[in-house]
């Protein structure tokens, strides 16, 4: 059976170098004690023939969270106080984006290839096609703020690559993760050109009581509100009674 599969693989007009991928886990569960999480992405390069060219092989890994709309506001000074003076609506921006590579990105990836595959953060955001007119500074601010809070990461040299065969990287997911499907793309580049790519999905989901409470708040808001009040009053009364018992 295995021999047959191998034969079949060999018979296919296979690319010279192919990615075989692994993930430490394809699901991230957000539970009550969730405090961010590391995911390990690893894999190997499968070759039909020995590495052909002298130019070194590189790996680029891009993880992209669900896209959400938002408004970017700019503050300015009016009559001595700081107020929001301008706003640009961004129809969609990834809530999380990480690019990890084996080397400096502008050396291992050509501009045209980046344009085609939308790999780097700026290209990925551009590819969504948000129309912000001539206010590029608003988009820059969005990227700057999200980078500061760890939601946007560029990890040049963050991928280890052994003998151009085994690669692995660790990507830290922050605590303020948005639920959804995280598209994970892996690119092999040689001489700045993408020679192979593959894609997988990491599922980020709330779990346990977190999931139950969130669902209740969305589906039965009145019940949820009454529950919140009941809890508050019970806690208030309980503490008061407790203190009386302590004193008396």
């Amino acid at each position, binding site marked *: 059976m295995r021999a047959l599969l191998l034969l079949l693989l060999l018979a296919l007009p296979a690319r010279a170098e192919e990615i075989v991928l692994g993930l430490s886990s394809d699901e991230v569960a957000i539970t009550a004690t969730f405090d961010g999480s590391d995911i390990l992405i690893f894999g190997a390069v499968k070759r039909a023939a020995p590495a052909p060219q002298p130019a070194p092989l590189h790996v680029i890994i891009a993880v992209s969270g669900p896209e959400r709309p938002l408004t970017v506001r700019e503050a300015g000074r009016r009559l001595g106080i700081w107020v929001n003076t301008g706003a640009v609506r961004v129809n969609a921006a990834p809530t999380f984006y990480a690019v990890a590579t084996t080397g400096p990105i502008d050396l291992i990836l050509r501009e045209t290839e980046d344009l085609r595959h939308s790999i780097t953060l700026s290209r990925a955001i551009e590819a969504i096609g948000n129309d912000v007119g001539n206010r590029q500074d608003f988009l820059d601010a969005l990227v700057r703020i999200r980078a500061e809070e760890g939601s946007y990461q560029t990890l040049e040299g963050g991928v280890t690559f052994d003998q151009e065969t085994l690669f692995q990287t660790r990507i830290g997911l922050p605590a303020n993760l948005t639920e959804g499907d995280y598209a994970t793309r892996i690119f092999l580049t040689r001489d700045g050109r993408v020679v192979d790519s593959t894609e997988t999905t990491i599922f980020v989901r709330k779990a346990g009581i*977190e999931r139950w409470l969130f669902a209740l708040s969305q589906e039965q*808001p009145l019940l949820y509100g009454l529950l919140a009040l009941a809890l*508050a009053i019970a806690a208030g009364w309980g503490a008061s009674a407790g203190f009386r018992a302590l004193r008396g």
Partner: protein
Amino acid sequence: MQIYLPIAEVSVNALLLLGLGGLVGVLSGMFGVGGGFLITPLLFLVGIPPAVAVATSANQIVASSFSALLTHLQRRTVDMWMGTVLLMGGLLGSALGVMAFNLLRSLGQVDLLVRLCYVAFLGTVGGLMLLESVRAVWRTRSGQIPQRRRHSWVHALPFKTRFRVSGLYISVIPPILVGVFVGLLSAIMGVGGGFILVPAMIYLLGMPTKVVVGTSTFQIIFLTAFTTLLHATTNQTVDVVLALLLIVGGVIGAQVGAQIGTRLKPELLRLLLALLVLAVCGQLALTLLLRPEEPFSLDSAA
């Protein structure tokens, strides 16, 4: 110890939230203010989204005030009838406030207006209280007996009723107006309104300081319960886990605060509250006046 909040969708230190709740609970018990004007800005600082902070602090105020109210009921320092009249105005004001809030939101300047409201009201109320309490402390030092104003314009209005516990015979119009005003502020600023209510009861209605704290606690509970339900059903922004952590800290703090409150002189209590209100006001004023480190901000509420 980090904990993930299901509605706020952030992970924060549980002990920090317990501490915040405890601190505000002590103040709540001492002064009869719900503490919303403190806890809401503090939650912003911790990184809770503003909408969730406002809604959840309303929920936490219900608990800490309830625990304080039980203590006050035992001491018979609650004027139920006055509280009910204030509340009738309060519910009306809260409904109007939510409408005003949505209107401002559509204009895109709600953040600024909330902050300006905070600075203006905390500044005025804090300043007035500071002046008055310094004067009162001075009077007790020099041995003069404080005089309660017996007749003012408040006493000339119709629909008079007797507020037995407060020892007042005045028109219901001023308390209802005070209630509407407090309800309005509560909806716009995400607070219980105690910091407005307490001075209004003392200086405008002429109620004795001893019953002011208990009575304002009484009206705050119902007003914030109403606000919590409103937020839970319209915006789904009440975070029960966050509220519970703040509550556990808060109820303990409130008991401690109520004990301290009965031991301190009322004038001194007012002086301390005035200083606290002014400190929060100054902090907020600075954020309006100083150049922000990052002039841009992200608003994910679509």
